């Protein structure tokens, strides 16, 4: 029974870390205009509002139950807390990359200044488009 309780608690915390990370990432995406990562169809103010709502909902969902529970009675120990937090953040990044690439698949804007490097490329194209361009460029370089 205590194992079941631990599993539920761990899953709840993982969901909290995931939802808050997605919300914070969308706030940053809207602020820094990384439109290729937008989950809200590149609408800046809608993104701010929905991101704040998502973060508030995540905290509410987790803290509506009593959570001051020690690790010896079903709460999370320090190492577990660390692992679940990292897992939530990584899952949030992966989900954002996949879902934003699918949602914005038909969108991309030409880059007049040439190819931007790193994450800045995602201001003009989705993650998958950037990866594809990278592989195509490498193929051309290999032929040359």
């Amino acid at each position, binding site marked *: 029974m205590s194992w079941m309780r631990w599993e539920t608690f761990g899953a709840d*915390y993982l969901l*909290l*870390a995931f939802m*808050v*990370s997605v919300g*914070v*990432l969308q*706030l*940053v*995406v809207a*602020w*820094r205009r*990384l439109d290729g990562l937008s989950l809200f169809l590149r609408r800046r103010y809608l993104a701010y509002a929905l991101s704040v709502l998502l973060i508030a909902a995540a*905290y509410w969902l*987790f*803290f509506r139950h009593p*959570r*001051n*529970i*020690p690790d*010896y*009675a079903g*709460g*999370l120990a*320090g190492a577990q*807390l660390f692992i679940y*937090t990292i897992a939530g*953040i990584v899952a949030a*990044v992966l989900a954002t990359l996949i879902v934003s690439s699918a949602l914005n698949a038909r969108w991309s804007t030409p880059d007049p200044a040439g190819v931007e*490097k*790193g*994450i*800045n*490329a*995602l201001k003009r194209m989705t*993650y998958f488009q*950037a*990866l594809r361009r*990278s592989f195509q460029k490498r193929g051309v370089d290999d032929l040359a």
Partner: protein
Amino acid sequence: MISLDERLFFLINGLAGRSPAFDQAMALFVGDYFIPVTLSVVVFALWFIGKDATARERNQRAIFTTATGIGFASAIVKLMNLGLDRLRPFEAYPDQVYPLFYTCTDPSFPANSAAVAFAFAMGAWFADRRASVLLLCLAILWSFARVYCGVHYPLDILGGAAIGIVATFAALGVIRLVEPLPTWVLTLMRRLYLA
């Protein structure tokens, strides 16, 4: 010093029980989840912000320092717990402390929560001062709540904060020592459009 520490503790813990709303807020902040997850996502956001590529790279390097600093701080606290065994306030004064948190089983000094929280704040200081101030406010709030709810003495918090700051400076040295490893990681992440 100990006497002053305990007097200050009773002054702060003596505020508990007067306002149910404030007690409820402190019970939320004192826990192992609200402030830790908030600290983590603020540092996570640092990875993506920065006016230009140079500022962003500085932030990303600071995240490496922060993560290493947190690891060092936790290790130092664990080692100190082997030799120091100060009783928690609710154990030392069970009839005088107003507890708002569960009974922890590890030693009171130094406060692991303060060590970790101040390592977060100090790590961000090297990159983004505004984010660092926000993290510092969260660290102070968490530390105050730990005293208010009867979990730690103020001296435990000061000890933990000092460990967090020193551990982050040590981490900064280690990160410089293992160069070019952080540069390789950042270059790989940049090629994958993740940095």
